[in-house]
């Protein structure tokens, strides 16, 4: 073939092309230019409007690391983690109950999910707080006895309200995950003599995690934001603190922006964590794991310096 002969004669860094590479004039997308300009103009207008508004931007950095704000952030984080913990444990339990062959346990799980998904979490929070109307005091025999109002602290209300509601959503996510694992896996494990419990723990759940983790990441981020509802039951998390400071310092709107910035910061950090968790559970299922951002940067830097080495 003529191509092979040309290859030896040509310069070394030209790739051994087969037929001549196509050099054509690309289609011009004028519409894209127009839409880009319009979008940027709108963005500039919005930013300009905010900068001209009667907002004291300087107050935000002043209070950003205020002790009360940091405490609020800490409580928001704690609430998120504990509520999610209740949600995940309860969700797995409910999912296993729903998939069980026992009609009583599976109907109870169905009813629970129906109730807690069907009512707003804000309503649930307030109801937990006011359950003293039904139970005047709580009596666990010799272990514990107290008035409902002093037993049901804002923290406990928040945890129960958020956690039990979350369990209903997590149950559906876990159920989808468990159902996504091929039945052949259960059969193979059983054929090896593994018990139901071992099969679930060692074979099914690790594979179900691939399906469960991404939506659970979304749930964590949702939960972080939903904790702001807890301000209605007098629990001083980030949003409540921001409102309180806003009232005393005379910068109410500024403090709301401050809270928004903190929420954005926290959700961003969670998103990074989610990426690495998903990567961990993808092992074995994809032939090559997606590179971490750090690996991407390193690969780019290496290839850049490598290219320089060739051309120099």
């Amino acid at each position, binding site marked *: 073939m003529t191509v092979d002969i040309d290859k030896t004669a040509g310069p070394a860094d030209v790739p051994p092309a087969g037929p001549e590479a196509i050099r054509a004039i690309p289609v011009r997308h004028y519409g894209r230019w127009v839409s880009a300009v319009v979008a940027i103009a709108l963005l500039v207008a919005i930013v300009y409007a905010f900068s001209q508004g009667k907002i004291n931007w300087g107050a935000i950095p002043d209070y950003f690391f205020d002790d009360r704000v940091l405490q609020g952030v800490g409580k928001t984080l704690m609430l998120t983690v504990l509520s999610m913990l209740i949600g995940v444990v309860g969700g797995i339990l409910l999912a296993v109950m729903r998939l069980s062959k026992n009609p009583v346990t599976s109907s109870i799980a169905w009813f629970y999910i129906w109730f807690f998904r069907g009512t707003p979490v804000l309503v649930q929070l307030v109801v937990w707080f006011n359950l003293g109307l039904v139970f005047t005091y709580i009596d666990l025999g010799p272990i514990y006895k107290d008035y409902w109002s002093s037993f049901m602290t804002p923290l406990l209300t928040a945890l129960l309200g958020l956690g039990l509601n979350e369990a209903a959503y997590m149950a559906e996510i876990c159920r989808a995950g468990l159902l996504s694992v091929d039945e052949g896996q259960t059969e193979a494990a059983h054929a090896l*003599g593994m018990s139901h419990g071992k099969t679930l723990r060692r074979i099914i759940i690790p594979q179900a995690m691939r399906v469960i983790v991404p939506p659970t990441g979304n749930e964590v981020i949702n939960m972080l934001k939903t904790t702001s509802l807890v301000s209605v039951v007098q629990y001083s998390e980030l949003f409540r603190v921001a409102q309180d400071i806003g009232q005393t310092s005379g910068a109410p709107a500024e403090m709301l922006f401050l809270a928004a910035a903190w929420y954005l910061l926290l959700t961003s950090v969670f998103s990074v964590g989610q990426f690495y968790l998903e990567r961990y559970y993808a092992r074995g299922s994809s032939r090559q794991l997606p590179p971490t951002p750090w690996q991407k940067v390193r690969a780019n830097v290496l290839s850049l310096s490598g290219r320089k080495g060739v051309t120099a």
Partner: protein
Amino acid sequence: MTEKTVKDNGSGTLMVKAEGVHKSFGPVQVLKGIDLEVKAGEVFCLIGPSGSGKSTFLRCINHLEKINAGRLYVDGELVGYRQHGDKLYELRDREVALKRRDIGMVFQRFNLFPHMTAVENVMEAPVQVKGASRAQSKERAIQLLERVGLADKAGSYPSQLSGGQQQRVAIARALAMDPKLMLFDEPTSALDPELVGDVLDVMRDLAESGMTMVVVTHEMGFAREVGDSLVFMDGGVVVESGHPREVLTNPQHERTKSFLSKVL
């Protein structure tokens, strides 16, 4: 034990004995009275068109499917039930699992655990079921992988292996439990023709070592060369049985003749 013993009934030790085994899925009758005997140490081949019930029968042997009527014995013990007098008691899951330890199974679609490497797949059951030490199990697993010609793939995940390699790992995984009986459910049907030979070589090697094997297969060549007995099933019944060479070269029934004329 009050249960009937099928050992030493004149024809050597029986590993599997089926008496009038019936199985239906809802209204569909899949097995309509299967009678057969598998002797210890023999390679027993089940052939027949798809839907004839041969895979279902295989799955009944390790109680992945419950039979509706008849009796099925493995190594002299009733599968899935305990008999006291003339009453049958269902076995608990734990007891069924205990019996399955002695029966290895290889599936058409391999069913390797995708989140574990090859060596972890082979180690899993000895460690989790028998409670063997990890170090010992790993050593043994590597020996088994060597035996199926895959020692160099020990650290690979199933998705990084070809179909033939996956199936050989699956065989090693089943052997890790030191079974006395191996069930093969169309082990080469999901493979590229080129890769079938490697798996059959491993099975031939296993047969020579004296393992009792029940093989559902479409590989007539394997059945003829390695098989000691062969059963042709159709429509949920055994149509014809005998030595593979005789049945395959000189079938007696019309149905067997027409099936063989299409596959040979």
